[in-house]
């Protein structure tokens, strides 16, 4: 259970550029939910993810994970239970290390990074098997530097790496936005498969309304720091893309776009 309680966040407080993003923002996400979050630019989607992960500080409020207050905890500490995939494929992997080294370093998450061997040879077969499920041919490129892979391959690897170890939350920040439509489709299907297999609570920010409608069991639409549409379960299944589009266009017109 993840709870955001009375979150307040201002950007540039005290200056002319002061921007109030969240005012008494509240959100509850139950265990096992796959939440798709949509909304226009500046609506606070990514800021919300950053607040959950501790990448940006809040002015006041509480972030509770299973009742425990996380708001004072540092970002790396919170990430121990969070897997995160970014929009930029290069953020989820180490470009100068090879695939095997990348997988090994991710496999050790939550344990101590001591003076033991970085690559555990005994796990290589297991990594190969995980990679072969991606159907991207990466299992034959274990010793290839990740920097020379394509964006889609890197994003698939990043997704795999972020979900290798037991995590409580999977945070997806527009993770298909930088990919071509076909690759985006592959990554999205892969995401769905992993989320179902691991039954991990997932929050996915996306600009693709079709993905938001097709995938996940809850949909949120955000606008100017508020949730203006929240449908889950059966209600979400009934939802048509046109309906979402209608609401979306309405708020966009209000903004003068």
């Amino acid at each position, binding site marked *: 259970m993840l709870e955001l309680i009375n979150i307040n966040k201002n950007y540039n407080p005290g200056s002319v550029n002061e921007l109030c993003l969240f005012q008494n923002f509240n959100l509850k996400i139950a265990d096992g939910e796959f939440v798709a979050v949509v909304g226009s630019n500046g609506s606070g989607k990514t800021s919300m993810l950053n607040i959950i992960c501790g990448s940006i500080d809040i002015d006041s409020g509480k972030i509770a994970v299973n009742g425990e207050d996380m708001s004072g905890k540092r970002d790396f500490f919170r990430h121990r239970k969070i897997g995160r995939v970014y929009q930029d494929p290069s953020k989820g992997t*180490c470009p100068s290390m090879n695939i095997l080294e990348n997988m090994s370093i991710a496999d050790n998450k939550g344990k101590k990074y001591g003076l033991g061997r970085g690559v555990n040879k005994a796990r290589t077969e297991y990594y190969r098997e995980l990679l072969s499920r991606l159907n991207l041919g990466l299992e034959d490129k274990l010793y290839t530097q990740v920097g020379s892979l394509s964006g889609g391959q890197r994003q698939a690897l990043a997704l795999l790496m972020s979900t290798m170890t037991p995590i409580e939350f999977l945070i997806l920040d527009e993770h298909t936005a930088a990919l071509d439509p076909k690759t985006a489709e592959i990554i999205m299907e892969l995401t769905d498969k992993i989320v179902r297999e691991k039954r991990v609570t997932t929050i996915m920010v996306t600009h693709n309304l079709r993905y938001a409608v097709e995938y996940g069991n809850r949909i949120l639409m955000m606008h100017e720091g508020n949730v203006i549409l929240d449908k889950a379960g059966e209600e979400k299944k009934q939802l048509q893309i046109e309906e979402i589009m209608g609401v979306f266009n309405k708020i966009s017109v209000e903004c003068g776009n």
Partner: protein
Amino acid sequence: MTLLLSVLEQGMIYAIMALGVYITYKILDFPDLTVDGSFPMGAAITCMLIASGVNPLLTLFITFAAGALVGICTGLIHVKLKVRDLLSGIIMMTALYTVNLRIAGKANLPIYNMNTIFDNGFINAIFPEGMSVYKTVIIILVILMITKYLLDGYMSTKSGFLLRAVGDNDIIVTSLGVDKGLVKIVGLAIANGLVSLSGCIFAQQQRYFDISMGTGTVVIGLASVIIGTSLFKKVTFLNITSSVVLGSLLYKGCVALAIRMGLPPMDLKLITAVLFLIILVVGMDRKRRGGRYVRTN
């Protein structure tokens, strides 16, 4: 022959320092100027200890530890006090000038008649008379090889992987649930430990400490790293640390050649700087044509 020997000796001593600079500059992407202070600090500690009768072999370990401590200070200034990387190094470099004077007690401390790692009863006994010209270069080679293999070994541990990751993409280190600041501090500690160790060996080879001997160390280190990594990039059987070592030898060779061609030794630092500039410019050109991926942020 003497020229070749002295290039090899100095090149290999500076190679240990260059390995340290490689960690900060290439891996951590941190231009660390602390080096200009930690190199003479290694020398100052060594001369002080040897003058007061400490076993020369022991000074190798003591100077490494002292250098690591200095690296930790630079890291704390940068990570905890949020001072920019370049400035953290400048602060430490300036502070170390005084520290070095305090350690040595004066600006110049010779150890001419003392035992060193190159000149003591044991070493003089195992090397036959005819080999004594080569003993310095052989001992330096042994120390350099041990250092290089230890560093290579560390780089393939889990902790070493994190170090490589933090310079590559520090976001992933946070994603792995590790404090990236801590990883940077560890990297700076190892780097300055190596630099200080290099200063220790240099002092024992030259048999003195001088307060100004650190000036330009970082330039020599950077030049070695850049020559090594760009020139030997395509040579697959050389790993990156070997390339840095070769870079250092090559750079020392170039400087020695310039002096030999008739430039007065007074111009040494100027030659060092100009040569570094040439390497930087040529290096940039290669990078552009090579079409390598450019790291954003």
